[in-house]
């Protein structure tokens, strides 16, 4: 018999188990929910955190990377952050608890802890698969979040900004969002650190985009330099729905951002754009899966990564096209600027196509700043430092400008510029 010896439990794994035991009394949930929580912690105890041997975590060996886990602190007194976009309606969650969920016309917002308490969240807590560590940690520890329902045909005049704030310690939240048919609007999901204390954050968004809706969803991860951020968004796209998803990572020490999309209605159109700014000794992993399971859908993805210092970056992108999904048009590109000799980036694009009448493509590039472009700018009297920063900004701006919303573009460009200046 071939017995695999069990690995010894790591400090971080033990801390996860301990913080679960210590906080069990504070975790909302009926019997079913609590049973699920228990089983997820038991999984972590038995299987440990994923290592490079687990394909989905090959480039992010969490067992080695996650060194410690902060304790679940008391809720700090945190003010909402300044709006990214002036005039936006703000919903906020602080330290894992819904703080301000004042809804606006046509949008219903309720605290997710209600779903946990009455057990209706149980089905939602199911793991994506056996390697779904983000789902496991979030499921075990989730305390609250906001459930949003946007009624059919609503046109949002003002953007809706969801601020997920924390003041160190642990925060685990979930956001089930149902976008009704024909809805138009801009939604911004921000993950913000309000202090310098270490944090472990997990957050899952379930975004169900109704038929014919046309929305922009921005995920802006602005965590602190010592934070661990485990993010996941699970998207279902209805028929003829249009989604522009923009994902920005400009923070965190250890980041895993998962994006899982199912194009489940015919004629849907997905535009995914990402900007990852990686500096210091951080490790950032963006893992994307996209499933085309019906015919006639279009999807296009472009990720731009800027990597500095000793940072490490990972992009895993998988597109699956089912046999029935004829006339799919799917493109994926991952472009990386490596700006130091000590940083590194791994890109793993995958296509799995079972239909025979589709257009699918992927490309990954990793480069330094273009020497000819740099020389051209210098030959016009622009000094080395300014010229390099212009070119780095240009590399990002190209994808930001596709957002087609002046205020949002300006806000993001300003944020990225500040980041680049601080890391220059």
């Amino acid at each position: 018999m071939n017995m695999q010896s069990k690995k010894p439990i790591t400090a971080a794994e033990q801390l996860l188990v301990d913080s679960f035991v210590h906080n069990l009394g504070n975790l909302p949930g009926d019997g079913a929910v609590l049973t699920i929580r228990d089983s997820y912690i038991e999984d972590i105890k038995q299987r440990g955190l994923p290592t490079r041997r687990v394909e989905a975590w090959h480039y992010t060996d969490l067992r080695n990377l996650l060194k410690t886990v902060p304790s679940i602190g008391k809720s700090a007194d945190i003010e909402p952050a300044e709006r990214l976009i002036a005039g936006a309606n703000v919903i906020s969650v602080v330290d894992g608890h819904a703080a301000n969920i004042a809804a606006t016309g046509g949008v219903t917002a309720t605290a997710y802890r209600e779903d946990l308490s009455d057990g209706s969240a149980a089905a939602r807590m199911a793991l994506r698969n056996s390697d779904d560590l983000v789902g496991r940690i979030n499921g075990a520890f989730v305390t609250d979040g906001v459930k949003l329902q946007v009624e059919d045909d609503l046109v949002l005049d003002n953007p809706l900004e969801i601020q997920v704030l924390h003041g160190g310690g642990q925060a685990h939240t979930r956001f089930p969002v149902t976008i009704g048919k024909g809805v138009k609007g801009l939604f911004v999901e921000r993950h913000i650190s309000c202090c310098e204390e270490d944090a472990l954050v997990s957050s899952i968004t379930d975004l169900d985009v109704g038929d014919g809706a046309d929305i922009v969803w921005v995920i802006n991860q602005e965590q602190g330099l010592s934070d661990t951020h485990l993010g996941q968004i699970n998207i279902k796209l209805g028929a003829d729905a249009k989604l522009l998803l923009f994902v920005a990572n400009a923070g965190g020490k250890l980041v895993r951002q998962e994006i899982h999309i199912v194009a489940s209605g015919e004629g849907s159109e997905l535009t995914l754009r990402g900007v990852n700014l990686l500096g210091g000794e951080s490790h950032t992993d963006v893992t994307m899966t996209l499933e085309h399971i019906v015919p006639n859908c279009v999807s296009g993805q472009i990720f731009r990564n800027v990597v500095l210092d000793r940072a490490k970056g990972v992009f895993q992108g998988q597109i699956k096209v089912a046999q029935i999904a004829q006339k799919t048009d799917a493109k994926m590109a991952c472009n990386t600027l490596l700006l130091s000799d000590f940083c590194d980036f791994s890109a793993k694009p995958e296509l799995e196509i079972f239909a025979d009448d589709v257009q699918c493509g992927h490309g990954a590039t990793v480069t330094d700043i273009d020497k000819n472009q740099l020389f051209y700018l210098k030959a016009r009297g622009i000094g080395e430092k300014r010229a390099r920063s212009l070119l780095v900004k240009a590399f990002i701006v190209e994808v930001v400008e596709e957002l087609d919303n002046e205020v949002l573009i300006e806000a993001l460009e300003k944020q990225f510029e500040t980041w680049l200046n601080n890391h220059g």
Partner: protein
Amino acid sequence: MLEIRNLHARIAEDGTEIIRGLNLTVKNGEVAAIMGPNGSGKSTLSYILTGRSDYEVTEGDILYDGQSILGMDTAERAAAGLFLAFQYPVEIPGVATMQFLKVAMNEQRKARGEDELTTPDFIRRVKAAAANLQIDMAMLKRPLNVGFSGGEKKRAEILQMSLLEPKLCVLDETDSGLDIDALKIVADGVNALRSPDRSFIVITHYQRLLEYIVPDSVHVLYKGQVIKSGDRQLALELESDGYANVIKDAA
């Protein structure tokens, strides 16, 4: 204005010597044409003048207004008034042409200790210069050189030249890729900038450009040296007889 003394230079990467004892003097207000067969070092000379780090000067000196510029980097030389109109202007996606012009003009002004331009003043200057070169303002909203036709690229180079007001302009095969109408527009743009205290080095393969930009002197570059200098007549002789005789005489 410019004095190149016994210049030797090589490619930094593999040490291949390209410029081998080049001497050239360009006076204030002079338009000097440099001609020569392929591989004679014409474009290399333009890169060395602008301080491109792919090339190393191993011997000799380049004096600009009496001062050696070998210790200056590319941007410093540009701020000091040296301008290279590229044979192949570089496309830079993500940088709008207007934004680039403004940064370039202001960086040069800052380097010279001058105040930055106000936005209205900047716009006024660009509009005036663009009109002279028949450049549509819409083109300047596009990313720098991206999707520009050959003619648009060269006109954009001359636009930059007229806005940056350099003292020494090096035109590297500005005629390549231009049809006759575009050539006239570009040449008119250059001629409008001729002045007693601005000099030009016009690098070209063909006499044709020199019919529009009439040079004061013509120099033949061969194997990294100036092997013959003369007036405009020399260019006409080269056009009819080729380089063989000049090369034979020099040997």
